[in-house]
């Protein structure tokens, strides 16, 4: 009897020792590598994404799948030339479990190369270049944001349905702007509309006066535009002060006005944009999110904050399914790909190319807020036809 007791005790000890050994690898904190801009033009975006991400994880008690979370924050400086080196540092030296970033599409290109070489799991919380989930798609890369096409394509039909037939488009002469315009044009011309002039402004010029004179002399039914940040504010304000807003409706990608409502002031009133989020969305998740974000950071969240938040929620959901065990990467990828979120932006799930399938909303600025006019496209999937994985 005594020997039996002894043996069973020994067995128990060895089993528990064995168990703790196997847990060891998955016992430390989950390391999240944040590669976002914390300086320069995109600072506000990087900070909003970080705030949203941390809020989601804080709401789960600061844990992912029962494990503590460690953040490694690295300033991407929105500098494409430093991207491969920065990401290698996160993956190889800091040995993070997930790389979250970037904001800037150029930086994303550099990061994708490293993601391919190392197989590191990368979640893109902003950059909208189509190629990331199309030509360059890979199993270990996910996007929780948008692609230029996804946000501009629905506006093409909206514009036509509003009775516009001849439209002038204008953007910066760079890849992101042209991708955005291409999405709009695809839908608008398929309906039967015509792009009478496409104006490309040298990047990053914010001197729009001569283009506005040109638009006035063409006198189209409407103008569709993609500008962002300071360019967006400058364009919308110049457009209004040139008196064009009354005669020629201004349509745009949501990034034209996102995060800039205060700076736009009265000039923004009435501008129509399409985007996958609006701070006024009336669903339970969004109301709770807006309240929580405001009390945590003292300001209204924007799209960037939601994209960070959903990145956090995606990790929360996946790691709770896995019980915190991320040692089997194939299974981890599988679980991540099957994440379905009731996001503040509406339902969100992933396509085969790991791109979000989500609603795109038609928004109008009224009283300094993006009011939702309608759902411009419901559960819109991006046709990533070149994606093979």
């Amino acid at each position, binding site marked *: 009897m005594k020997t039996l007791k002894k043996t069973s005790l020994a067995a128990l000890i060895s089993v528990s020792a064995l168990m703790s050994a196997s847990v060891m690898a998955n016992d430390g904190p989950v390391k999240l590598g944040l590669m976002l801009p914390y300086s320069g033009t995109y600072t506000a975006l990087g900070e909003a994404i970080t705030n949203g991400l941390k809020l989601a994880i804080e709401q789960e008690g600061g844990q992912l799948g029962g494990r503590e979370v460690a953040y490694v924050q690295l300033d991407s400086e929105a500098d494409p030339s430093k991207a491969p080196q920065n990401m290698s540092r996160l993956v190889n030296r800091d040995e993070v479990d997930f790389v979250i970033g970037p904001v800037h599409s150029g930086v994303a290109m550099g990061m994708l190369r490293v993601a391919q070489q190392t197989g590191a799991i990368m979640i893109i919380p902003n950059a909208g270049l189509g190629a990331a989930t199309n030509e360059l798609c890979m199993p270990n890369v996910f996007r929780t944001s948008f692609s230029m096409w996804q946000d501009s394509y629905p506006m093409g039909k909206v514009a036509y349905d509003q009775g516009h037939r001849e439209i002038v488009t204008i953007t910066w002469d760079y890849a992101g702007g042209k991708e955005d315009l291409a999405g709009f044009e695809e839908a608008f011309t398929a309906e039967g509309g015509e792009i009478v002039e496409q104006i490309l402004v040298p990047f990053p010029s914010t001197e729009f006066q*001569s283009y506005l004179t040109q638009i006035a002399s063409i006198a189209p039914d409407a103008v569709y535009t993609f500008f962002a940040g300071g360019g967006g504010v400058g364009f919308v304000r110049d457009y209004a002060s040139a008196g064009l807003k009354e005669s020629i409706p201004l349509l745009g990608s949501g990034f034209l006005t996102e*995060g800039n409502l205060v700076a736009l002031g009265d000039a923004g009133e009435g501008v129509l944009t399409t985007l996958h989020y609006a701070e006024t969305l009336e669903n339970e998740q969004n109301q709770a999110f807006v309240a929580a974000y405001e009390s945590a950071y003292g300001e209204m969240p924007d799209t960037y904050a939601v994209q960070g938040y959903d990145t956090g929620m995606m990790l929360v959901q996946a790691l709770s399914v896995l019980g915190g065990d991320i040692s089997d990467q194939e299974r981890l990828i599988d679980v991540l790909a099957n994440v379905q979120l009731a996001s503040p932006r509406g339902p969100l799930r992933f396509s085969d190319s790991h791109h979000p399938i989500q609603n795109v909303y038609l928004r109008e600025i009224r009283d300094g807020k993006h009011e939702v006019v309608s759902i411009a496209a419901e559960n819109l999937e991006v046709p990533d036809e070149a994606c093979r994985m």
Partner: protein
Amino acid sequence: MDLAFFSVQLLNGLQYGLLLFLIASGLTLIFGIMGIINLAHGAMYMIGAYLVYDLTMRLGNFWLAIVVAIPIAIALGLIIERLFLDTLYKRDHLYQVLLTFGMILVLNEVQRIIWGGNVHSVPVPAPFDSSIQLTSNLRYSVYRLFVMGVCLALAGVIYWIIRHTRLGIIIRAGAVNRDMVEGLGINVRTLFTLIFSAGVALTAFAGMIAAPLTSITPGMGDSILITCFVVVVIGGIGSIKGAFWGAIIIGMATTFGSVLIPSLASMVIYLIMAAVLLVKPRGLFA
């Protein structure tokens, strides 16, 4: 291209050119007379815009904000000249380039710490917050016309000082031969401090009056700096007259280039610079 379209574009080009002149005039003075390549000149333009934004928010009045912001800009110029440039006059240009480049980084970072990464704007101030009808569907902001007027007036004042005052004679002489001016018993040290502060004040003032027209963003001075160097090089280093005509040429070229030859729009000003330098290697008015 009909006449109305052409005239409005002419107006656009003139307005942009005059604003460029305000920034470039300070740059050319500092460059031509003191021999300082001030890379931080654009950052001072940005600081001017942010100062007036901040003060407008605090004081609730744009004009009052400008009145308060100008002495701050002058003081900034004084501090930089006395504290940092003073020791570098005798050294090679490279030291000044390095120092003023460092200042860009520091000023940009200071801007970010104080005002953050968000885009800001200043409402167009009364009584100029209206517009006049130019063509059937195009209005022109009265404030833009006001800015043109102010820039023209300042150009006149600067021209008068340089051409018709004793100070102007010294400045012109200093641009040609510094040692000679010193030999005549003029305190070049004080002259330099004066010119540098005036240059900083001019560019900061340009940022201030441009604030209601533009969006105030981090790094907004970086791109305008390059354009202003082109202006200074075309006009001839150190020449106020050159800065004026250089700015008008670049303003017009940018405006008409972007409409008439859009594919070359981003290159137009450099093509003009190359053409001018081929014919007059020292610039048009040097």
